[in-house]
């Protein structure tokens, strides 16, 4: 089975690196897309949304990305994320607080309110909450035997 090398980095740390990825599902500016091994070279921006990574071991990893961009090359795919974390690392309370704050700011909408920034913050928090919600209903698939080490 062909696999691809995937690396996810933020300016602060490397979030994920592996070379046995068989599918990557992400939300680009033009809509959701699935990247398979040997995809044509592509560069696009990513929206705040869930990232799903399927590995050759049968593992499925769910992450949330708050924005960034992806570079797909034949031998390697790199995601440069503004912020990215595994869905089980999401700080639910913080995301909810951020959402409330952003909503209040949008409602207040005075001249001193930066609407674009508040909207971006709202979209980030909603993306996080949505991923948590979804993962609570359908937990990620785990391989039945021989648990592989994950980065």
């Amino acid at each position, binding site marked *: 089975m062909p696999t691809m090398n995937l690396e996810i*980095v933020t*300016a*602060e740390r490397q979030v994920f690196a592996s070379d046995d990825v068989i599918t990557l599902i992400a939300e680009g500016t033009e809509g959701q897309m699935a990247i398979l091994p040997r995809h*044509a*070279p*592509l*560069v696009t*921006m990513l929206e705040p949304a869930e990232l799903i990574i399927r590995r050759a071991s049968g593992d499925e990893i769910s992450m949330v990305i708050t924005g960034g*961009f992806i*570079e797909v090359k034949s031998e390697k795919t790199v995601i440069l994320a503004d912020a990215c974390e595994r869905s089980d690392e999401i700080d639910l309370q913080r995301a909810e607080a951020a959402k409330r704050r952003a909503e209040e700011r949008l409602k207040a909408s005075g001249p001193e309110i930066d609407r674009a920034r508040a909207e971006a913050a709202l979209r980030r928090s909603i993306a996080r909450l949505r991923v948590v919600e979804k993962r609570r209903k359908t937990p990620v698939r785990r391989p039945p035997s021989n648990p592989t080490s994950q980065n």
Partner: protein
Amino acid sequence: MVSPRILRRRIRSVQSTAKITRAMEMIATAKMKKSQDATIAVRPYSDKLTQVIADLAAQAAIGGATHPLLQVRKIRKIAILFISTDRGLCGGLNTNLNRMTGSFILDQKVPVTLITVGSKGRDFMRRSMREIRAEFIKMNDRPRMADTMAISHILMEDYINEVYDQVFIAYNKFINVMTQKPTIDQMLPVIPAKLSKTNPDYIFEPYGMAVLGELLPRFAEMQVYHAILEAIASEQSARMMAMRNATENANEVIAELTLTLNKARQEMITKELLDITGGVESLK
């Protein structure tokens, strides 16, 4: 001759100084390690960003379009992001940077405005009556990218609004523990790296200029973040070296004082013995 009592007091005081400098050295060592790791962690991100921007900018240049952050204008005013430290006791670190940036400012033919990070640099620029547009102090030891965005956003907004036409970053670059190099880099307009074209022809979604427009602000943010991390690593390593020297000096002083003390004590004993024998002699 100094009395032994005073000598003992001085030894105690130097000893407690040595304890403090030793502790400061150890704290700086621990912090330096962390900030070095953070500086290394930016590298993959910054390399990739540099490369994709180089590709995109080359493509955009062919199309004749440019992004505001790439636009080279006639220079009427310059801004310098001046990254110093909040605290002293780090050897010649700030002095070197002040001197270099100072002469850089004097070489300019157009007015210069400053955005300062750290109170040491701000105070220096205030003393030399320089225009300060914004100042940031108390940056923590392990800043996150988000902590530095306020700084990069001011610079980008001002640049796009033509408040100034060129932006430099002045900071101490971390070379190794012994060496920190005062450095001035151009930040805006962004100069895309000239890379030999080894990359495939990408599909850009939605299209090249839109992607470039999203990437350039991130690149500028990353540059500021990176420079601040370098400056912090430099500060901690400079402080570590300064404190190590201070501890060594204190120990030398202690050794000297102890020697003087012993001599003085011995002299006193000899004198007392002479007095006693003299007294006994006179009684005979």
